[in-house]
């Protein structure tokens, strides 16, 4: 009986993570379109939300990797899954506060691994699955995306250089609507599945499903709705960093960057690689800056992101481990409830903190002045 309560809490927490995943990652698909004004901010997040919803139904390869490929399902308890999710949510909110496009996927995987290590030790982690399906794709994907976007940007500018400025801008803005839509769809196929995988893992842990089972439909539906809701909420802070902070983007560049992201993410989904869509998008945006002569890439912003990428897995892991320790020290359902109260408190504090430096759809495109929240003087009407 109490197990069912805990299971329900784990599922709700999982869906909450999926929501943070959605708003943290709206930027991946839409930052460049919003920056080049190919789409209005409100239309962009709505379109992205709908396509994330659709994308979530397209594939289950990545969910299978997460549910069965990372940790020994026999050694994991619901408290472990809960601890991992709590760690992932907190790390996602912290990076969002600073407007850093860190990987929601790594936060989730880090949190789960951290809690598993704390609970059962290193033999419960399938290191080979972790390295081959998560770590290596994580290291390679941004470089591949940057390469593809650099080549794409170079080709596009070379082909279109004789076009009139006005019609070129107009044409590629239309192209961007298509390419950004594909990134949203691809995001749904890859990221929505990660939470599906975790909830499936929780169901297997609880004995509701047999080991190696595939994801039930109701889990797919709930996860699809959560990530779409989060996407619609729009993580304006991260959108601003990606769209304005890294590179000043023109429509042909945005188009090339999005095409590269969409291709790399969809291919990785195809192979069951749970890669970070955030890192792919960032790699692509850097590439579109490299592929155009004279484009300015703000390497200091890129460097800060790089640091965040490296520390995301261990940091989320540490937070996952801490929340597992708290839950197990108190013990049982009460322990999970204590964790839950802490999680809600910390989330509320971070949200409250974010309100003093607000970024929303009105100031998301203000000129980059070195910080996430535009200074009042820098706000353009």
């Amino acid at each position, binding site marked *: 009986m109490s197990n069912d309560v805990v299971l329900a809490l784990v599922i709700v927490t999982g869906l909450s993570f999926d929501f943070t995943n959605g708003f943290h990652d709206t930027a991946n698909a839409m930052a460049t379109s919003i920056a080049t004004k190919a789409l209005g901010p409100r239309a962009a997040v709505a379109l992205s939300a709908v396509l994330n919803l659709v994308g979530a139904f*397209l*594939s*289950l*390869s990545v969910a299978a990797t997460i549910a069965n490929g990372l940790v020994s399902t026999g050694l994991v308890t619901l408290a472990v899954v809960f601890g991992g999710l709590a760690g992932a949510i907190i790390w996602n909110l912290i990076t969002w506060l600073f407007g850093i496009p860190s990987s929601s996927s790594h936060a989730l995987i880090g949190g789960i691994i951290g809690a598993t290590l704390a609970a059962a030790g290193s033999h419960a982690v399938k290191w*080979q699955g972790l*390295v*081959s399906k998560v770590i*290596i794709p994580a290291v*390679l994907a941004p470089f*591949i*995306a940057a*390469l*593809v*976007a650099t*080549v*794409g940007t170079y*080709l*596009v500018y070379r*082909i*279109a250089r*004789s*076009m*009139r*400025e*006005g*019609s*070129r*801008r*107009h*044409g*590629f803005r*239309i*192209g961007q609507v298509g*390419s950004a839509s*594909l990134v949203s*769809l691809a995001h749904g*196929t890859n990221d929505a599945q990660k939470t599906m995988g975790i909830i499936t893992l929780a169901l297997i842990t609880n004995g509701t499903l047999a080991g190696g089972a*595939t994801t039930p439909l109701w889990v797919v539906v709930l996860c699809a709705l959560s990530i779409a809701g989060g996407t619609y909420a729009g993580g304006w802070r991260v959108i601003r960093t990606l769209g304005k902070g890294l590179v000043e983007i023109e429509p*042909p560049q945005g*188009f*090339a960057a999005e*095409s*590269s*992201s*969409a*291709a*790399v993410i*969809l*291919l*990785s*989904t*195809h*192979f069951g*690689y749970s890669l970070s869509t955030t890192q792919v998008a960032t790699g692509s945006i850097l590439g579109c800056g490299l592929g155009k002569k004279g484009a300015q890439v703000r390497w200091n912003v890129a460097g800060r992101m790089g640091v965040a990428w490296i520390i995301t897995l261990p940091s989320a892991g540490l937070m996952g481990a801490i929340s597992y320790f708290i839950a197990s020290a108190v013990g049982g359902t009460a322990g999970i409830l204590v964790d839950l109260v802490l999680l809600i408190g910390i989330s509320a504090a971070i949200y409250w903190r974010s309100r003093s430096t607000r970024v929303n759809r009105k100031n998301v495109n203000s000129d980059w002045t070195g910080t996430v929240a535009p200074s009042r003087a820098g706000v353009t009407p």
Partner: protein
Amino acid sequence: MSSWIDLRAVWEIVVVGLLAGAGLPALFAIGLRALGTPGKGHVKISDDELVGGSRAGIPIAAACFAIVLAAIGYGIYIVVISGHGAK
């Protein structure tokens, strides 16, 4: 070693990624350029118009856009087919 890193998959992602992620945008750009090529007796209405009215340009553009759309459709089809266990 090959169980830790799937080189074939990496290689495929790079090659197909370049074809789809850089090749298709290039094709779209060719289409836009062909579409915008000015034809005989064309009167410019606005600076950001897309159609130039060239007799050769329009079919070339149509072919480019059709290939791009077909490739996207095929790509999504493959992901869906392989993503639900029907390998």
